[in-house]
């Protein structure tokens, strides 16, 4: 699904609206469940208020005192349009918060460079929230949400790459210079061959990670980080190669490549860019005890 969103650049908070209810509804209190159900059927919009989304950058901080929320989250996707907020506090708890609650300040940014999102900054000064999960279960659910976001963002990136490769092949067959199609020049062919190999590698990795979730229910934190580390790096490069092969027109707003490129650039750092995620993956590999069983899994 998210691969298709990428391929066609579908706008809107689809990720938040489908993911948050799927992970949280089962264990949520009755009132919250109704909210999730409504969001899934397109009635109302959810936003995820998680300072961790900024990756290595300062995304803010949210603390809890006497059951009330304080602090700020600098980047909330679709925060301004949200009818309900799911908030992640620094102590690893989950809250459902009404954006119109007393003490809450939502500052919508007027301009942004991601063609498909709008961003807001949320300030919390003693805001009341409904706990969404048992305190002992919340950290696991938060990890699950973050892993899913990384996975689905990678799928969206994969769709962007597929689109860019397809468009570029078509263009290279059509556009002529020096009396022949530019796709007959080896310099161009080799760029496109690499684009194809890299786009395919992202697709295959998405398939593989998603196939594993059929049994486990959610991608592991490491698998999701591996996937998004790879997708973030490769898909931005594929977009850049697509622009190069298009020449001057590739730099204009006349063709749609710039939308795909900007979207890829905006998704790249979301929940960790390649560097941050590689470091996280490396730390996990070095911490793990060597267990053959993990790799012996039949291909």
């Amino acid at each position, binding site marked *: 699904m998210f691969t298709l969103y990428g391929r066609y650049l579908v706008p809107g908070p689809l990720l938040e609206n489908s993911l948050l209810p799927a992970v949280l509804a089962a264990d949520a209190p009755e009132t919250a469940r109704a909210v999730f159900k409504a969001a899934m059927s397109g009635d109302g919009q959810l936003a995820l208020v998680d300072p961790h989304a900024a990756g290595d950058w300062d995304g803010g901080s949210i603390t809890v005192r006497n059951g009330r929320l304080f602090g700020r989250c600098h980047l909330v996707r679709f925060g301004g349009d949200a009818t309900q907020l799911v908030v992640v506090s620094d102590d690893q708890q989950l809250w459902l918060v009404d954006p119109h609650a007393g003490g809450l300040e939502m500052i919508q940014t007027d301009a942004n460079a991601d063609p498909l999102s709008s961003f807001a900054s949320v300030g919390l000064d003693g805001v009341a929230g409904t706990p969404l999960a048992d305190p002992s279960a919340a950290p696991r659910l938060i990890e699950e949400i973050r892993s899913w976001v990384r996975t689905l963002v990678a799928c969206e990136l994969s769709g962007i790459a597929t689109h860019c490769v397809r468009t570029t092949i078509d263009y290279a*067959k059509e556009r002529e210079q020096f009396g022949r199609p530019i796709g*007959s020049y080896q310099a161009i062919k*080799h760029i496109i061959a690499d684009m*194809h190999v890299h786009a395919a590698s992202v697709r*295959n990795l998405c398939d*593989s990670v998603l196939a594993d979730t059929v049994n486990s229910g959610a991608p592991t934190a490491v698998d999701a980080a591996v996937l998004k580390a790879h997708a973030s790096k490769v898909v931005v490069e594929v977009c850049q190669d697509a622009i190069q092969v298009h020449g001057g027109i590739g730099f204009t707003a006349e063709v749609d490549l710039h939308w795909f490129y900007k979207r890829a650039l905006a998704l790249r750092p979301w929940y960790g860019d390649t560097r941050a995620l590689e470091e996280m*993956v*490396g730390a996990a590999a070095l911490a793990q005890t060597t267990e053959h069983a993990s790799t012996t899994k039949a*291909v």
Partner: protein
Amino acid sequence: MTTDLAEYRSGVRAWLADADIPTVPLDLDERFDVLRDWQRVLFEAGGLGISWSKEAGGQGLSHLHQLAFAEELAYARAPMPIGLIGLDVVGPSIDEFGQQWQREELLPKLLSGEHIWCQGFSEPGAGSDLASLRTRAVLDGDEFVISGQKVWTSWAHKAQWCALLVRTDPAAHKHAGISYLLVDMSTPGITPKPLEQMTGDREFCEVFFDEVRVPRRNLVGELNGGWAVATHTLGIERAAYTLRRRVDYEIAFEDAVAALRDHGLPAPETGLGRRVRIAIGKAHVALKVLGAQTQKTVARLAAGEVPTPEDSVDKLLLNEVEQIIFGEIAELLGPYRAVEESRPLGLASDRWAHDHLYSRATSIYGGTSQIQRNIISERLLGLPRG
């Protein structure tokens, strides 16, 4: 099928647990002898030619069984046998295109390691453009008389047999005048001269042929039909090789991580601490990328869809992944790379420097990365020929 495969795998694992697994000597000659003995042991245990027909001395099982065996071998830290060119490349082509006597007499000895094979394709003037090869074979009664030169022929100085591409019709179009011959390396007139590689090993050779007489019955496929056999060989090679190398990389990665951990990691907040995490992270991501790719390769093999231009996608990704993994690990050696037998961060400098150097070869042999890109863009993506 899956249970069968799972049972097979656990059988292999049990056998390996009791097997006398050799340690591989660094010296090339000793290494050759040890791995040749190991090949016989594996053969007698039914571990070679797993997906080959029974009449060819194989086990008549699937490619997936073969893969399972290779994986278990690697996980048990057991080395590969020495005769891989015969096993992966020449053997399957003889099985597919060879004559009855060739299958019956040559393949069992190829499997057991009694005969080591080499592949004489490349020449000084014919590398990527293999079809321009010039080594001549002229029919004289019941014999071909061969004169010319091959180069980069791996293990030619150790081999008993060679699969040789020769020009049998100089007048025909270049692809149409080539034949595939099986040549006994003890025939008079053959001189292999080992070449030293950048790793210091002497694995490959120049090979000179001076009026070498080979019986006509040693022809594989049709006279002047050698190109079809050769392209089949190269396609099979790419798929089999991808799967096998993936397992090698996994083991190398695990070894590096274990060495780093046993030695003690640098303090996390230091520059070096961060470098180690990022290097290992990059290598791990590369490994997973290849893992996901080989899942598709296995599906293609199981469906009999090999060789295809898709194999070139595998080969290109494989080259990239190998170079990332060994590049990242070798970079952790820092300046100690130049100091033989040192162990910076617990990593044995000799081993990782060797493997890193060797990774330069992957994007050259079996068709260079540029040739794979030509194949992908023209045959897979339909871009116009230049």
